């Protein structure tokens, strides 16, 4: 592959990389001009709304839409009958967008209408009569696994267990990752800690609800404007579900108001297209916050058992995890990723992680930042902390003694290349936060975390304008400042100013396929494609200069944004700048453009260590985070401000997950807190300043050494905060969130125990 050779052209000194220029989309975003999902409209536009199941589990006997259709102003009603059933991998996606024989969770879409106004659409929903046969339901992962639990899918038999089950079950599959011999490993341990943990489901909590504007004509040609992490994914999935040619559906990604993995699939988009096709009008759909909570993709709730053994001098001899993740009403919880990542921070000879993918009457989970990893890390890091205390070893030293490093055979199989876990631990140990004095009711905790990072299908075009500026088209929605990073990388490579590059996110008809903005991939993969496209332009520019000078193309080199004769033998010509070559391009062979397409790999695994101090009010159980420090390996920070922002944002989401956020289901199986008032995400007064240390252990698979940074930052916080809270109150906290009632309960149990 040519990639290897090109990456060998590694850069280690930079003019622009690592600076902090103002992002190109900044002014639009501070003036209110930036256009997000719900900010578009079209002539003749209708408003689409969804009727959702009020039941956690119910057979849908009949849906009568006659009255709704007859209401003045209603232009289309769709139900399951408007979507062709299928039997392939997309069936779950389809059924999640529109229920078929059963409603599988509170909030499951059952029908949708398009009307001339929102008020009429709301009225029409009330006129749809659904005949439900309510069925027993289950929402808790442990309950769902018990014999006798209500079965969601009578055709589902647990995969990968011997002997093959004869009865259907809510357990979709089992997976296992193992190395060495854990029995022998535990036999060598002086101290063993075994604990069981539970975590509640949390939501990504992006502030922008899902929104789209769809327009599909009777000729099968259509367009969607949509807030999504992947507009090519929207195009391919919707085209498939609606039976359209991919080429006939053009998708434009709006500015996106947060995603964190939650906008990596379809919910309302196929419905909006179906309504548009049926009504012959553009249809806009915007979810309410209630719908976002009830019917998009929160992450799994979990139940876990962790057992780790160590020698007295701090060498871990064996580690074992049983992980049970429910992923809502369809198989596919990220338990396998949990099992792979659980012990990835440690260099272990004997390790075993078993995962169970469980279905329940909850919304189908979607990716949430390092999907599957944070829960397992919370449990493992809690046990590691307890072990360190038991053997009276400093928790950083204990981790350092067992830390994964280059050459470590990871618990999930492959051997690690250059990684930066040890550097993050050392940075945390050296930070003043680690020595700050603690008062009464205060505690300190730390935890490490790992995420793979992915790259994937990527395609980028770089067009050179006559005035020497550059138009860069990428196909990965910019979710946190990536256009700034792309401008920086293009400018660095071409030797022109940051301001000379304008990066846009192209629509699906203007640029080849790009995977979703996920897996912390964009700065790595779109960045790599951008660098390669720029190098192609440079090659072409050198050739144009060579032609101009009448010398051979390989006698020209590129230096500091100029084409130069390679040496005195090549001739004595005045160097031609990027701008000069661009200006002459129409006379030297035509427009100049570079393009690169790649299925990128090697986004570079990443590790982080988080440290935090908390104070717990023993009266109320309220926890205040006093200090928070993050060290994470970024490989190479392109725009350090946005790298820090990723670190800090992950930590804040982790603070919410650790202390407050949870899906609360009633006995009726309905979500009781589907709003920001009752599902409380951290606000400014809940957070301290969050200090960051960017560790840079270059990723050998990127020309600048970049690693993904977006996801790792949410892996350690729950463990770090749980360790701090447990230290503050003197009771080991085993459940998330550690909300005030849970902390008060833990303190009461301790008092009761003492009294007994």
């Amino acid at each position, binding site marked *: 592959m040519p990639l290897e050779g090109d990456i060998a052209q590694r850069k280690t000194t930079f003019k622009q990389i690592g600076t902090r220029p103002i*992002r190109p989309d*900044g002014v639009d975003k*501070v003036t209110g001009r930036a256009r997000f999902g719900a900010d578009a409209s079209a002539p003749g536009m209708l408003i689409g709304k969804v009727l959702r199941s009020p039941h956690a589990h119910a057979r849908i006997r009949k849906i009568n839409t006659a009255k709704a259709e007859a209401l003045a102003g209603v232009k289309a009603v769709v139900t399951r009958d408007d979507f062709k059933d299928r039997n392939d991998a997309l069936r779950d996606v389809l059924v999640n967008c529109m229920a078929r024989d059963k409603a599988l969770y509170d909030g499951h879409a059952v029908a949708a209408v398009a009307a001339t106004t929102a008020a009429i659409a709301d009225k029409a929903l009330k006129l749809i009569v659904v005949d439900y046969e309510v069925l027993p339901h289950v929402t808790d992962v442990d309950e769902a696994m018990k014999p006798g639990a209500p079965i969601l899918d009578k055709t589902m038999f647990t995969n990968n267990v011997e002997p093959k089950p004869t009865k259907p079950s809510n357990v979709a599959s089992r997976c296992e990752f193992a190395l060495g011999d854990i029995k022998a490993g535990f036999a060598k341990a002086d101290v063993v800690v075994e604990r069981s943990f539970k975590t509640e489901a949390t939501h990504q909590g992006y502030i*922008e609800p899902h929104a789209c504007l769809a327009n599909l004509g009777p000729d099968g040609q259509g367009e969607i404007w949509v807030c999504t992490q992947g507009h090519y994914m929207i195009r391919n999935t919707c085209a498939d579900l609606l039976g359209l040619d991919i080429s006939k559906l053009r998708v434009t990604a709006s500015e996106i*108001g*947060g995603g964190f993995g939650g906008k990596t699939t379809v919910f309302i988009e196929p419905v909006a297209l179906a309504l548009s096709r049926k009504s012959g009008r553009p249809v806009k759909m915007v979810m309410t916050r209630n719908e976002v909570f009830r019917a998009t993709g929160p992450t799994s709730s979990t139940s876990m058992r962790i057992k780790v053994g160590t020698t007295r001098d701090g060498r871990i001899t064996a580690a074992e995890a049983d992980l049970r993740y429910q992923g809502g009403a369809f198989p596919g919880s990220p338990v396998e990723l949990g099992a792979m990542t659980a012990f990835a921070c440690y260099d272990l000879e004997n390790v075993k992680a078993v995962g169970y993918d469980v279905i329940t009457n909850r919304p189908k989970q979607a990716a949430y930042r390092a999907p599957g990893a944070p829960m397992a890390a919370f449990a493992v890091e809690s046990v590691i902390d307890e072990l360190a205390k038991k053997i009276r070893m400093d928790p950083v030293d204990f981790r350092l003694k067992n830390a994964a490093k280059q050459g470590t055979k990871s618990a999930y199989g492959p051997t690690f290349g250059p990684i930066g876990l040890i550097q993050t631990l050392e940075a945390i140990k050296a930070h003043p936060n680690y020595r700050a004095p603690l008062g009464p009711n205060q505690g300190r905790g730390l935890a490490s975390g790992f995420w793979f990072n992915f790259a994937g299908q990527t395609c980028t075009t770089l067009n050179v304008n006559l005035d020497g500026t550059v138009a860069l088209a990428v196909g990965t929605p910019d979710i946190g400042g990536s256009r700034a990073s792309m401008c920086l990388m293009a400018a660095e490579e071409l030797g022109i100013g940051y301001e000379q590059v304008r990066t846009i996110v192209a629509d699906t008809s203007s640029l080849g396929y790009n995977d979703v903005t996920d897996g912390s991939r964009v700065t790595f993969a779109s960045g790599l494609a951008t660098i390669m496209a720029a190098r192609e332009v440079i090659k072409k520019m050198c050739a144009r200069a060579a032609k101009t000078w009448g010398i051979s193309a390989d006698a020209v080199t590129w230096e500091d944004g100029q084409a130069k004769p390679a040496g005195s033998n090549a001739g004595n010509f005045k160097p031609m700048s990027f701008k000069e070559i661009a200006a002459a391009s129409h006379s030297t062979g035509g427009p100049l453009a570079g393009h690169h397409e790649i299925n990128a790999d090697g986004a570079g695994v990443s590790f982080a260590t988080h440290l935090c101090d908390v104070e717990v009010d023993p009266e109320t159980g309220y926890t205040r985070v006093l200090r928070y420090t993050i060290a994470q390996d970024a490989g190479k920070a392109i725009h350090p401000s946005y790298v820090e922002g990723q670190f800090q*944002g992950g930590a804040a989401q982790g603070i919410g997950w650790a202390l407050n956020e949870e899906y609360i289901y009633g006995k009726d199986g309905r979500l009781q807190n589907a709003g920001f008032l009752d599902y409380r995400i951290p606000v400014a007064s809940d957070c301290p300043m969050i200090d960051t240390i960017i560790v840079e252990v270059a990723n050998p698979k990127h020309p600048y050494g970049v690693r993904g940074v977006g996801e790792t930052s949410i892996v350690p916080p729950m463990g770090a905060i749980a360790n701090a809270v447990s230290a503050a109150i003197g009771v080991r906290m085993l459940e998330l969130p550690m909300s005030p009632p849970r902390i008060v309960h833990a303190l009461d149990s301790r008092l009761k125990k003492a009294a007994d």
Partner: protein
Amino acid sequence: MSGHHVTTTINGDSVEFVCEPQESLLDVLRNHLGLTGAKEGCGTGDCGACSIELDGRLVCSCLVLGAEAEGRKIRTIEGMAKGDKLHPLQKKFLEHAALQCGICTPGFLVAARALLERTPNPTETQVRYWLAGNLCRCTGYDKIVRAVLATAVEMKQEKRHAA
């Protein structure tokens, strides 16, 4: 369906519109007047993305009826920059990278301006509590709080220069 005819002032301009009685001011701004800078994150006054000023008071426009705008003075994010001159808060938000996705940014800026107009020298704690009605899911608030504090310092210096 009978609409309310409303006359109001938005960012200094006289504006007239007709709205249904149940429509929120946010709906009116976004759907009737094309002012989409205020965002709907929740519709229940919990997220602050729709923050505007109504007669100098910071409100969630999703909790105000369109009809209530009659005779009032409204300030939205669209009126924050003067022509091509950004407000100091807008500049500092950019310099400090105080936004990632940017959906909450208009609400934060409107809320932060209301704070600095009342409390020109806020402490970090004051900033954090004043902005507690605005949710941001991307930044962890660190850079937002720093940007507001830095703006306060700069505006104070500018005032001193002007005096």
